[in-house]
């Protein structure tokens, strides 16, 4: 009986050790819209992110209100007219690393991965594949990605009068150091 219990305990321990989830709630995401008229940039430093080293599953969540702009009028317009944060307070991403064996979690290094999943913002969910990097440093992964999205894909309405000031493609930068 003792043997069995210790075996069980070992099995549970092995599983939990193997399926480590690295997390953070202070990741950063910034975006920039570049047009000849003006550049619009904002950054959030309150990004929640988690990655499961066993399954390669990743999740992100951002309170849209956490994006800070240099011009407060832009921030107000972003919240009120474009992202409608009162209705859609959070943007999320749920996905999985497609090549789950690519990352050696115990070994420092930079691993290039693709993450396939669902990006939800402004109440619209879309399947998306994001090229990113997992940088393992002292046993902790840093998740980095740069990709572009189109506001129209997420039903973010841009009136004709401001269309020249908002880029068709918004560049997004992700940088989350997980523990």
């Amino acid at each position: 009986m003792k043997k069995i219990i210790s075996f069980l305990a070992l099995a549970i321990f092995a599983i939990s050790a193997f399926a480590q989830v690295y997390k953070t709630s202070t990741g950063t995401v910034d975006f920039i819209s570049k047009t000849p008229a003006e550049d619009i940039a904002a950054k959030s430093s309150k990004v929640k992110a988690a990655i499961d080293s066993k399954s390669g599953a990743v999740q992100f969540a951002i309170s849209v209100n956490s994006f800070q702009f240099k011009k407060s009028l832009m921030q107000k317009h972003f919240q009120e007219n474009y992202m409608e944060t009162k209705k859609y307070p959070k943007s999320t991403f749920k996905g999985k690393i497609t090549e789950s064996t690519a990352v050696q979690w115990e070994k420092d290094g930079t691993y290039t991965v693709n993450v396939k999943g669902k990006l939800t913002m402004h109440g619209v969910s879309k399947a998306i594949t994001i090229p990113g990097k997992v940088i393992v440093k002292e046993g902790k992964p840093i998740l980095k990605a740069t990709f572009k999205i189109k506001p129209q894909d997420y039903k973010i309405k841009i009136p004709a009068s401001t269309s020249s000031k908002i880029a068709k493609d918004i560049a997004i930068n992700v940088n989350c150091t997980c523990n």
Partner: protein
Amino acid sequence: MKKLKPIGKALLIISAFFFTQQLYSQETPDLLAGLDNEEEVYPVTNEFKTTQVINLPSLMMTDIGEFDLKINHRFNPLNSGAYDAFGFDVANIRIGGEYGIAKGMVIGLGRSNVAKQTDAFLECKLFNQTTDNKIPFTAILYAGSAYTAQKYTFTQTESGREVDFKSRLAYTAQLVLGKKLSNSLSLQVSPTVLHYNTTKANTSDDKFDNTLMAVGIAARAKITTRTTFNAEWIPVIGNNGNYKNALSIGFDIETGGHVFQLHLTNSRGMSPYQYIGRNDQSWGDGGIHFGFNISRIFNIVNHEE
């Protein structure tokens, strides 16, 4: 059921464990669980499209480093008659500006051709409604003064007091209390004290109170993302002679950095001393002014990170 041998039991438990583990991972567990313990809290904003409901200061304040140019315009009342094109021929204007000198602190200045009045004010945010509703509403203190330069139509003897610089001043203090109830609906109440150093300008009636109280009540409802319907009513408490309470309705139209406000109101003046306590027109007899406000924001200083 036969009694299983201990080893069989253990195997069963282990396989059950693996099986549930498998199931669990298939329906993508919430990896972020545990990170949500601390709810993020943000100040509620965008209660109105601009810092004025129609005439009343709204729950919105010009942000730090921003300059908001205000061009307010009221035509004469619709009952002016055909000769004045139902008010269109006469322009009552106030040109002013507001600047956010610090976080939650705004100064403003304006000049109106109505009674040649210059008004100045200071606005301070006392507290702001939060997204978690721990602070359920927003409070702003508005304090101001105005100097009326128009020549009096009465003499010093008639007024019984010296018509000097001091007699031309008026003061106001107002609390702006309000709440964004939903994405579309915002409500505010504005308890106000007004003090006129003289109540005799343009009238020989001596019965008016120098100090008046008023409670402004205002609301906005969104029609679309960028257009809203606004209304405000400012009943005055105190003896204010024949002057009428202000009632105004209007629309806000937002286009990028501009907000256009179009409205109907029985107030000709555009400073609190005029639109709260000095309305001689009433809706009942067609004393309705068509008017508009234009607000244009200029970013003077960028936010610090």
